[in-house]
């Protein structure tokens, strides 16, 4: 068990006193970089582990993801990693998080599996996502399997945020519905958009009642969520390619498999750089896994391409009436209702991408 380093494992277990305390991310920076990790962004909490005042280990929490877990090279031995992960996990459990994840390098995946985390998805030689409680992924798959039982034909799928639901979304859904035996519409569940998830979901459901072969369902934690695709919600475009691949690995292995998806439909994306990178990966990774990727041209109203961000900027400018031409009646009547007032106020203050 004694590795090449100067410290023997008996010392690690019996004599070495390691103290932990909260530190700033800057303090952890050098240790992370020397371990070949990048300094994570958007962290809520960073812990430092000290031996004789020297920083020998660190780990951070960002929302419900543990990341930036590194141990000084002279102190490597899995017990310090275990100590870091225990500390971060206890903190997540205390905060009442239902489930949480570790985002790490592909080469570190096995180490965290041996600590009891289960792999959700991975990008070979690059990155892996693991979860604390594997029963969540099992239940997600079971729920989807129940939904798709009986639909054995050419099932289609669209993943959309609908912030808010526009005529463009409706057009994409109608096209996809016509080209699928059954169509599953997964609405991004992460509540980081200005229109709350429940409302986005409700508007799509009510606006597509005339279509018989569709199910509108929540996307859950495993489809474009803060765990699978944090860049989608971040202001900076960090690691978009990596997370696009990770999100799609999970889509292929779990969502598409459980729903028996044969085609995924996407809307052409001329504006948003994150979505257009994501679309590009859909068009390469899905066909390689036997799932057809169908890109649909955007619907135009006159010369103008319809988009939810266009609608939001009209709202921001106080021109809701001008947005009416881009919206199905359900969305427009919601926007002019009293219930929408607080959302409209928020839009006027914000500038989020999706």
């Amino acid at each position, binding site marked *: 068990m004694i590795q090449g380093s100067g410290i023997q494992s008996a010392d690690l277990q019996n004599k070495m006193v390691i103290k932990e305390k909260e530190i700033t991310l800057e303090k952890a920076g050098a240790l992370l970089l020397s371990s070949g990790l990048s300094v994570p962004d958007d962290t809520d909490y960073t812990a430092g582990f000290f031996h004789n005042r020297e920083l020998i280990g660190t780990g951070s929490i960002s929302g419900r993801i543990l990341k930036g877990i590194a141990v000084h090279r002279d102190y490597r031995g899995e017990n310090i990693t275990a100590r870091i992960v225990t500390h971060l996990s206890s903190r997540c459990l205390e905060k009442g998080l239902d489930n949480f994840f570790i985002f790490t390098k592909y080469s570190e995946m096995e180490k965290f599996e041996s600590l009891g985390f289960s792999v959700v998805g991975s990008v070979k030689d690059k990155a892996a996502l693991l979860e604390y409680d*594997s029963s969540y992924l099992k239940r997600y798959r079971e729920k989807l399997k129940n939904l798709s039982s009986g639909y054995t034909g050419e099932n289609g799928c669209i993943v959309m945020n609908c912030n808010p639901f526009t005529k463009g979304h409706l057009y994409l859904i109608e096209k996809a519905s016509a080209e699928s035996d059954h169509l599953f519409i997964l609405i991004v569940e992460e509540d980081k958009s200005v229109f709350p998830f429940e409302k986005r979901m409700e508007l799509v459901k009510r606006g597509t009642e005339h279509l018989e072969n569709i199910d509108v369902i929540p996307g859950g934690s495993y489809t474009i969520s803060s765990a699978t695709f944090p860049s989608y919600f971040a202001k900076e475009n960090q690691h978009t390619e990596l997370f696009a691949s990770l999100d799609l690995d999970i889509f292929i292995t779990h969502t598409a498999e459980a729903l028996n998806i044969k085609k995924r439909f996407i809307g052409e994306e001329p504006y948003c750089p994150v979505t257009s990178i994501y679309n590009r990966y859909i068009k390469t990774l899905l066909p390689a896994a036997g799932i057809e990727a169908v890109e649909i041209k955007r619907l135009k109203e006159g010369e103008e391409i319809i988009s939810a961000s266009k609608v939001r900027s009209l709202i921001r400018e106080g021109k809701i009436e001008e947005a009416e031409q881009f919206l199905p009646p359900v969305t427009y009547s919601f926007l002019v209702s009293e219930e929408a007032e607080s959302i409209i106020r928020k839009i006027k203050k914000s500038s989020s991408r999706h």
Partner: protein
Amino acid sequence: MVLQKRASAGTLESSDTMVTAEPSGKELELYVESIVMHQFGDDIRKSVMEVCSELGVSSGRITVKDRGALECTIKARVETALLRSGGENND
């Protein structure tokens, strides 16, 4: 005893076990992961169920992440998690 809130006990360190217990409103669900699952998975389940029945816990969700702990360690960790979750004041 009825589980009241999410609580955990133990660590992920070698030779230890980390246990989380929480109410679920349904019959007892037990999830066990262990590095010695093949040899001792059933024994671990049995130990956990014994502690549950001793404390009269018949509903809730219990997750056990075992890193090769002895039976007495596992039982002690489960007992602590259950007592913390059930709202007894022995933290």
